[in-house]
Structures are given as structure tokens and as C-alpha cells.
């Protein structure tokens, strides 16, 4: 499969008065054409920053990509000029944001916001852009699209707005869409609809999708491959199936155990991960997860484990990866 995005050893840091925050600390992954890749992790683990880095949207100052490379369709994203990166944004890599309630400009009509991208990137005339905008709204399942075009964002519900955001992202037929927690602000029933919609459309149009989420349910159903992030690093990589059935990092294991499941006895207590994520301004010498890890050994305090293969296409960054008990597998 053709790789469209290759991220290698990406490092993004924020220089604040409290110290240097190593928000993304050397992550490497690839995205193939038409593939859905999930990035999972707690709040503040660097998953949004890693996504924003791809479009060079990190506010500078205080943030900066300090190392690594991002190659998209053979282009070195980090070396592009401002004018060149603007031609990539929205045109070839589109983004869907977390909050549909505020991601649309309240003073512009839906139609205007959709046609603006089309006119800007594809040079469409107003008439053609309007027709295309209506077609896009129809495609994301919004009824009576012609009328919706003349409406303002406050006329629409959260789910509808997220559909509009998806239509905007799809409008220029990009090769890659980055969705930053696209369903976090929505009702559960709407979440499923939006995710189904994104999966159907990306599969049908052959668009690759990076979906950033902290919801493992999303990962299981919709992602082809999964990157689990902790404290700015990818600590486990693999297919959704592998991550689910053979979690090989204590953190992944902990994440899976802290999700309430309907198919488990109701009296059973949840088993949360104890403690707090580490302060990214002072990471010690060893594994960042060590203070919260129940499998930690002496080696973990001194040496940072690298991603090493567990099985075909499945890697984990843990010294103890081969001696973890597998309670999920045992239970089933």
C-alpha cells in the first residue's frame, strides 16, 4: 500500500516560563492511502499536538517542531514556505475539530463557509461552488441542503454542525483528513452516526483518516491501526485487533480495564490507572509510565524502553512486555 504520510521521530516542544514542555517526544508512524489510523491517549499526552504539527498549526511562540520529519506525498512539510503550506491545508490535508459548536464562524452562513474553501483552493465560481456545497451537504446526510446553505450555524444542532465540518473537510477532496476528537462533544447516539459517516465516506472516497480520540470504543470499531500515546511518546503500535486482544503495554492494558463494559458482571469494580500523567517539563531518565505501572522493575527507572516488535506489525515500548498477564484474554 502506498504511504501518503510518514512521520519520523517528530518532536514538538513548548517553551514556557515553567520550562520546556516536551509535548511530542519522538514519534514515528505512517499512514497509508485510504487507511484509518487512530491515536489514543489521555488528555495532555500530546495526541492533538502531534496532529497540529502535521499542518504546522502549532502556535509559535511558544511552540515549535524541534526535530524529526513529516513527509506527505513526498513533500517535506516542515520545509514548505508559508504560502506552500497554505495550499496543503484544507486542500490536501483537511482537519475536523473537536468542538462543532464553535468550529463554525457564527456570523457567516453555512453556504459561505463551505464555498469559501472551494473558491479559495479550487478557484470555483460562486455558482459552481454553491452547487458543490449543496451536493456535499447531501453527501453528509443533511436534508434540504439548498435551504441549509442560507442558514447560520446557530440554526443547526451539534451533530448537524459536525456534519457540516465533515463536508467542509471533504470539500476539496483531500488525501488525508485529521479528526481531532470529532465526537467528544456529541451525544452518544450522534457519535455513532458521525463515526459511521466518516468511515463510510473515507472508505468510499479513498481518503485516509487520522482519528484522535481517548475513546477505545471508537478505536475498536473504526480504526485499521492504532497508536497508543503516553507522555509524548507512542508506547504501543499495532492493528486494532492486536491492541484489543493482545495489549502488550501496561498502559494499554490499564486503559482497556478502565472502560466499563456491558458484557462484564455489573458488580465488578472498574480498575482505573492510579496516579496522574507526568509533568512533561520534567521527565526523568526512565520510562514515563513507571510511577503508575504495577509491572515496573528496576530497569524501568534508568532506561527508556524503545518500541520493539511483539508480533507481526505490533510493537510495544516496555521492558516487561513479554511477562504481562493477559486478563482480557483470560476473561474471554
Amino acid at each position: 500500500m502506498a504511504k501518503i504520510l510518514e512521520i519520523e521521530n517528530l518532536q514538538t516542544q513548548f517553551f514556557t516560563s515553567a520550562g520546556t514542555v516536551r509535548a511530542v517526544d519522538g514519534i514515528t508512524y505512517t499512514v497509508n492511502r485510504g487507511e484509518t489510523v487512530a491515536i489514543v491517549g489521555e488528555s495532555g499526552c500530546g495526541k492533538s499536538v502531534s496532529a497540529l504539527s502535521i499542518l504546522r498549526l502549532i502556535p509559535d511562540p511558544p511552540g515549535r517542531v524541534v526535530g524529526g520529519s513529516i513527509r506527505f506525498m513526498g513533500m517535506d512539510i516542515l520545509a514548505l514556505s508559508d504560502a506552500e503550506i497554505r495550499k496543503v491545508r484544507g486542500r490536501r490535508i483537511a482537519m475536523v475539530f473537536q468542538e462543532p459548536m464553535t468550529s463554525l464562524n457564527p456570523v457567516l452562513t453555512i453556504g459561505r463557509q463551505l464555498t469559501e474553501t472551494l473558491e479559495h483552493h479550487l478557484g470555483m465560481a460562486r455558482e459552481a461552488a454553491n452547487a458543490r456545497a449543496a451536493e456535499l451537504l447531501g453527501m453528509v446526510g443533511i436534508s434540504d441542503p439548498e435551504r441549509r446553505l442560507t442558514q447560520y450555524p446557530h440554526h443547526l444542532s451539534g451533530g448537524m454542525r459536525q456534519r457540516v465540518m465533515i463536508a467542509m473537510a471533504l470539500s476539496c477532496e483531500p488525501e488525508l483528513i485529521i479528526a481531532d476528537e470529532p465526537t467528544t462533544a456529541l451525544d452518544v447516539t450522534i457519535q455513532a452516526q458521525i463515526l459511521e459517516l466518516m468511515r463510510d465516506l473515507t472508505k468510499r472516497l479513498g481518503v485516509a483518516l487520522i482519528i484522535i480520540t481517548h475513546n477505545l470504543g471508537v478505536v475498536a470499531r473504526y480504526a485499521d491501526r492504532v497508536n497508543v500515546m503516553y507522555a509524548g511518546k507512542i508506547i504501543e503500535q499495532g492493528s486494532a485487533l492486536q491492541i484489543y486482544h493482545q495489549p502488550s503495554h501496561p498502559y494499554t492494558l490499564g486503559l482497556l480495564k478502565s472502560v466499563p463494559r456491558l458484557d462484564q458482571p455489573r458488580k465488578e469494580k472498574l480498575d482505573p490507572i492510579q496516579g496522574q500523567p507526568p509533568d512533561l517539563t520534567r521527565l526523568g531518565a526512565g520510562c514515563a509510565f513507571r510511577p503508575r505501572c504495577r509491572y515496573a522493575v528496576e530497569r524501568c527507572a534508568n532506561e527508556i524502553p524503545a518500541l520493539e516488535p511483539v508480533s507481526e506489525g505490533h510493537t510495544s515500548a516496555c521492558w516487561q512486555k513479554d511477562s504481562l498477564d493477559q486478563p482480557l484474554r483470560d476473561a474471554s
Partner: protein
Amino acid sequence: MTVSDVRIDPDAERAVERTPRPAALLGLIARYPLGAAGAFVVLVMIFAAVFAEAIAPYDPEDNAFEYMFTPPGAQFWLGTDDFGRDILSRIIHGARTALFVGFVAAVIGATGGLVLGVASAYFGGWFDLIIQRVMDVFMAFPLIILALAVVAVLGPGIDKVIIAITIPFIPQCARVVRSSALAIREMPYVDAARACGFSHARIILRHMVPNVMAPYLIMITAFVGQAILLEAVLAFLGLGVQEPTAAWGLMLKSGAEEYAESAPWIPIFPGLAISLAVFGFNLFGDALRDALDPKLRAQ
């Protein structure tokens, strides 16, 4: 039958969504009686300025020495001045000067401040710091002193008066707009616009400026009142428009200097016109601020 055949008549729907206009207007008047009074004064002024030739009973610059110092009466409603010119006609024509200077200065000043303020908030960092410190320098001077200094440098004349009044307005509006734009800048739709690949200029003008229209419009109405007052002050000090142009400050000056006691109607009526105009614009501006601010409206 396809979906597009089942169309709701858009006009019919809009009529349902919105209150009919006359009723909405009455509602506004009931809610903001002072604002309505201010709006009335503003409208009367605009009407007088636009149709000055048709309304004014006499030519405002026509000297009629046989009628000098006529007190208010049936022939000259507000009396005549020391050149026998009809004061009512001069006030009506003076409204044109006042409004012209007021609107042009207010719109240019507020617009300049709008662009600077939004750009300052959007770019932040050094750009913001430098712009804001320059604005601080301008704001350190009282309005009138700054205007006087500019006129003293440029010389008298209506165009120079407009420039002199515009310059102190720019930093005032820039400061207010910047504070609103700082909040807008953090909104996800601005990030979304950047993620769509739009240029800085486009994001500022198309995506941020429309969101700070409320403070901008309020600043304009406040500025028009201030500009009218400033224009009158400059004329009164002999630095603004020159005789024989009909201007309220000028009329007040010639009247107040010599005839305050012997012919008090000469200074009183232009003075009243100035006060009423500024009062009207301020009332209107206050009501506009209340009406455009959802937080105040809720109370």
C-alpha cells in the same frame, strides 16, 4: 417526486421566523425609550443636513444688514446675527457641516482602529506590543489637545479638521476592538480557518472582523457625538472651518464673544444645537450598546 421538488417557500418561512418589522420597531422603542429619543434627534439631524436647501427658510450666507440683530419672532424664528443672517437657516446648514465632519471622522477613525485592533490581537507577540505602545503614546494626550496639535501643524480647513479628529479616534477604537478580538482569536473557528489554508489577511477581514462589529458600531456612534463636539470646539477656537461657512462652533464663537448679553439668541441656539446633537448621539450609542450586548439584554 424528488426531494428538491418539495420546497418550502423561503419567504413564507422567514415571515414565521421573524417578528414583522413595524411591531419589532415598536418593541425596540418601548424597551429603549431614551435610545429612541436619541435616534429621533439623529434622524432629524440627518434629515436637516440632507434637505438643508429645501427646509432652510433663507440662504445661510446671505447678509441682510437691514435685519441685523432681529430677535426671534415670526419672520426669523430664531432671530438673526450680526450680519443679518437667519440663525435657523444657519443651524440647519450647520447640521450638514457637523454631520459630515462627524461621520467621516468617526467612520475613518473607527475603521482604522478596527483593522489595527484585530490585526494586533491576531498576530500577538511583538507586533501587538509595538502597536499597543504606539497607541498608548497617542492615548496619553487628551483628545482635544491632540486634535489641536494636529490642526496647528496642518492648518485650518475642513479636510484638516477631519484628519485632526480622526487621529485620536484610531487608538481608542483599536484598544476596544483588540480586547474583543483577543477572545475571538481563541475561538476554534479561527483555527479552523487556518486549517483551511486561508491567508492572514483573509482570516482577519473575513473571519474576525465581522465578529467584532458590535463594539465597532458602538464606537462609531460614540465617535460621531464626540467628533461633532470636537469640530465645534476647533471652530470656536478659530482652528476649524472658516467663515462664512455655517458651522455651529463658529456661530457660537462670534455670538459668545460680543453679543452674549446684547443679543443672547445668537450664541444660545447654536449652543443648544451642539448639546442636543451630542446628547442624541450618546443616547443612541448607549441604547445600541445595550441592544447589541446579549449579556445586558438578558437582564
